[in-house]
């Protein structure tokens, strides 16, 4: 796997590391505010990932998965995604709605709308940090909520980033929340063209 330092200036690598730490913590604040619970951010990192390896970063490709997906537009374009197991997503909806865990049994229009709003807030908090620290103009698109096999959902990221690239820059972290047993993945994949414009050697 290619090292960040071989592609970008030292100053830019420092900025990427800062964003992967503080930017993701900011995103988690947005998420936590929405569900009204504390969140722990674990294993946040920035790295170059081989495109076809993205499909191996989560569980089984047939696992029923929920993803909240949005893009950033502006001077730094990119993709953002919250990925969580189906059962976990229903627990998150319960928390947003202020219901006891286990109340939501399926994801209808209202439940998906709640998850969209969660994606919107999390993405906006992340992008606000990026904008403040880079002087760039970025805004999120309306989020899409998908419920499907994990592999099928990841095709979106792979196909979008893979048209021109074999490796992509990725910020990722786990959001851990005490009341629910499994972790939530938060991924940000900036568009390589805009990233290169900012920090290429």
């Amino acid at each position: 796997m290619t090292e960040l330092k071989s592609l970008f200036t030292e100053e830019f690598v420092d900025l990427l590391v800062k964003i992967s730490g503080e930017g993701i913590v900011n995103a988690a604040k947005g998420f936590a505010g929405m569900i009204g619970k504390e969140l722990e951010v674990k294993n946040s990192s920035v790295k170059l990932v081989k495109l076809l390896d993205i499909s191996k970063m989560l569980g089984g490709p047939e696992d029923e998965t929920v993803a909240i997906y949005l893009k950033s537009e502006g001077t730094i374009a990119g993709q953002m995604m919250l990925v969580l197991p189906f059962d976990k997503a229903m627990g998150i909806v319960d928390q947003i709605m202020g219901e006891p865990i286990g109340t939501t049994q399926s994801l209808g229009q209202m439940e998906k709308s709640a998850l969209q709003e969660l994606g919107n807030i999390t993405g906006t908090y992340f992008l606000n940090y990026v904008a403040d620290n880079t002087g760039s103009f970025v805004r999120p698109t309306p989020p899409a909520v998908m419920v499907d096999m994990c592999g099928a959902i990841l095709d979106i990221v792979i196909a979008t980033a893979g048209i021109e690239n074999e490796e992509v820059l990725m910020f990722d972290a786990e959001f851990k929340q005490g009341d629910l047993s499994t972790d939530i993945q938060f991924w940000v994949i900036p568009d390589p063209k805009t990233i290169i414009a900012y920090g290429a050697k």
Partner: protein
Amino acid sequence: METSIGVGLGEIAVSQNRDQILVAFGLGSCVGIGAYDPKKGIAGLLHAVLPEPLNSTDSESTKYVKNGIYKLMDQMIEMGAAQERLIIRMAGGANMLTSPGLSKTFDIGTRNIAVAERVLQEKKLKVISQSVGGNTGRTFRVYVSDGKMTIRMIGEKETVF
């Protein structure tokens, strides 16, 4: 005892082992092309990711539909299959994003299917059946024992197509 052989992104599997099942799990916008020569009992499965390369640096990669189909045919013929006997079935090519404002940007699935249909036609390979498009992921299985091909969508049973 049957063994599943996973066919990952951009991969091809070809087999004459009757105990094997070739599987492309969770196809979204990706397209799977299954092929079977009933006389020789040779089966193959391609899991292609993108329609065509934009540059020439990796134009040979089987992650692209066109190169993938060519290499699938090469590998099957090398094992002893005859192109004119091949039974071809195709699955995948979904548009996973249905949100207004996002879906049109990501219509890779439709493009994958269009390129696959064109290349198969150029190679004079007839598609016997297909399960393509829509907004749902699919798992595609090819049973080497008898050439049976199936799909399964989330929450549904495996069905022959």
